[in-house]
């Protein structure tokens, strides 16, 4: 197993930040709801990566345990999100986000 020291941690954090930024970009730019969900998943996994990286750096198991929980939670979140997408599609015949602008003032 690769030991995680300061340098490796730095690389991992940069990777996590990059993943997060990619996910955020997806969330902000995608008009398609499914694309948006994928972006959200990327952001969540960037966080997971950080957790694991810090966990290894500090030598405890807390980070890995938390990561397992967040993965489980993300699954639930995706399930709910996809259900919403299906409902959206049923009511609007479209998964486009612009179609769901009912809160317009």
């Amino acid at each position, binding site marked *: 197993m690769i030991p995680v020291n300061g340098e490796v941690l730095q690389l991992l954090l940069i990777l996590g930040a990059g993943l997060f930024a990619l996910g955020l970009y997806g*969330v*902000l730019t995608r008009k398609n709801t499914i694309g948006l969900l994928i972006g959200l998943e990327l952001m969540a996994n960037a966080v997971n990566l950080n957790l694991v990286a810090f966990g290894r750096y500090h030598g405890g198991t807390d980070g890995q345990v938390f990561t397992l929980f967040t993965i489980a939670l993300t699954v639930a979140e995706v399930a709910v999100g996809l259900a919403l997408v299906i409902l959206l599609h049923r009511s609007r015949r479209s998964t486009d*986000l612009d179609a*769901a*602008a*009912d*809160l*317009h*003032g």
Partner: protein
Amino acid sequence: MTHDLLALLALLSPLVAAVVLFIIAPLRVRGAVSAALTIGATSVSLVASVLLAAARMFGATAPNVDLQLAWLPGGAQTLATVGVYVDPVAAPMMVVVALVALCVQVYSVGYLGHEPSRDRGRYFAYHALFAFSMLGLVMAPNLLQLFVCWELVGLASYLLIGYYWTKPSAGQAALKAFWVTKFADMGLMLGLMVLYVKTGGFDWNVPVGQALMTADAETIAGLFFLAVVGKSAQFPMHIWLPDAMEGPTPVSALLHAATMVAAGVYLIVRAYPIFMLAPTVLTVMVYLGAFTALFAAVVAVFQDDIKKVLAFSTCSQLGYMVAALGTGSMVSGYFHLTTHAFFKALLFLTAGSLIHAVHSNSLHDMGGLWAKMKPTGILLIIGSLALAGFPMTAGFFSKDLILEELLHAGHYLPLGAAILAAGLTAFYMTRVVMLSLFGAPSEAAEHAHESPAVMLAPMVLLAVLALAGGLLHGDFARMAGVEAAFHVTPVGVVATLVGFSGIGLGLWRFSPGRRTAIGTQWVSAPMRLLTWLTASKPVDVFFAGFYRQAMLRAAAGIAWFDRYIIDALINLSGWAVLRGAERFRELQTGQPTDYVYAVVGGLIVLTAMGVFTA
């Protein structure tokens, strides 16, 4: 203390009757029940008042009754109290009020006998309210309670004048009486405020060590006097009293002759320590009172309505009282109030008896009633003699006392006016007697019949007092601490001679043989002009004009300010919120992406702040 109980009984028994009658409608709609309750309560008051007065007059000196209950508690000291206070000043007035009220109530049983039962019930309920209010005014331990009761008697007056409420003129008269006196009452309220600011209380006896400055006393007394002018129908606010004759005649006898209009005079008597500090106001009182006495007497000569004659006569006699009080002689004014209450109530009740017989107020419709109604005729003559100041009647003593005081104080012009008014009084009362009792009977008088005993009995009682009331003059003098026995004075002789000549002139002018035309037709054109000028008509017009022009305009101006300035500010704020909201709602695009942008933007801002402040 039994006297405490008596005083409470005198005040509270009419209150109980009034409350019971006002709340329990089934009792009120039964005229007989209502009458019995009210008359019973007033009888209790009368007995208690007589017992209280007997222990304080005729040389007896029982201690004052002074029961007070904290009313407006305010911090360290009580702001105002309510209670009963009976001293040698209040006691005789209590007897007058209770006695005349009882006489009038008993008389009303006969006078209103043909009215529907529920109307009579209402009438007697008002009477109970009046008896309570008037006794509360007389027994008030301070001027604030006096003011409250002052307004209550005004309310009772309004209700009773408007008793025949289906008649538009009665409703208008009630409103007029209410508004005119209410306008004047502002003086009493403002005066009380000034009094409170200056002395910290509502007592008529300013506490020692808190000497009232003369200027303040003038202000307070002047404001009080404004209320007196309204309540006691002095010129130029006498205009409501003749109209108030729209009420039933017994009401006129009780409220608008004997007691309520005398409340103004009583206020001066009560607040005399304050009035004595205000020489200017006292002088104004002398002149205004004397002018009213003469003016109203002149107008009374030309009235065809028997009640209007008596109404203007009341104005005139109240003028005497005010003038007497203005000379600094409390006794003479107060004494005349008492005697006047007896003989003027008697006159109104006899007038009511005549009206009851011929179903008309007009002197034209009377005439020749002596043959049909001798007892009423005798009573009317007794009342007229007392009012005219015929020697040894009650009016003789009190009027002479007033004239003497005017002479002593050196007010020669008012004295002349008062003596002239005395002659006119004798003249117009003779006219009333001659026109109503003697001469050819009119059509209406053919079917006249004497009033029942229930109406005659109270009149007889009042007639006895009108004849013998003068015997009380020594007691009134003692009340003020002077030992004044009656004595013949030159001014008294002159006034009596003037009175006799007035009677003689009336007898000659209206003797049945001479009287070809009755009523106002007997006056020449210049006199008619004088009548028009002096009758209340021009004053009415002036007041109506004042009200329409000044007050309604001012009210319209204030209404405009309210609508276009105050309301506009309120509306502006509402409009601004609406327009602002219209603009700001654009922020809510409803696009989910925009909200994510907002979240991310906010996050960046927060992070930046965290970075830069750390």
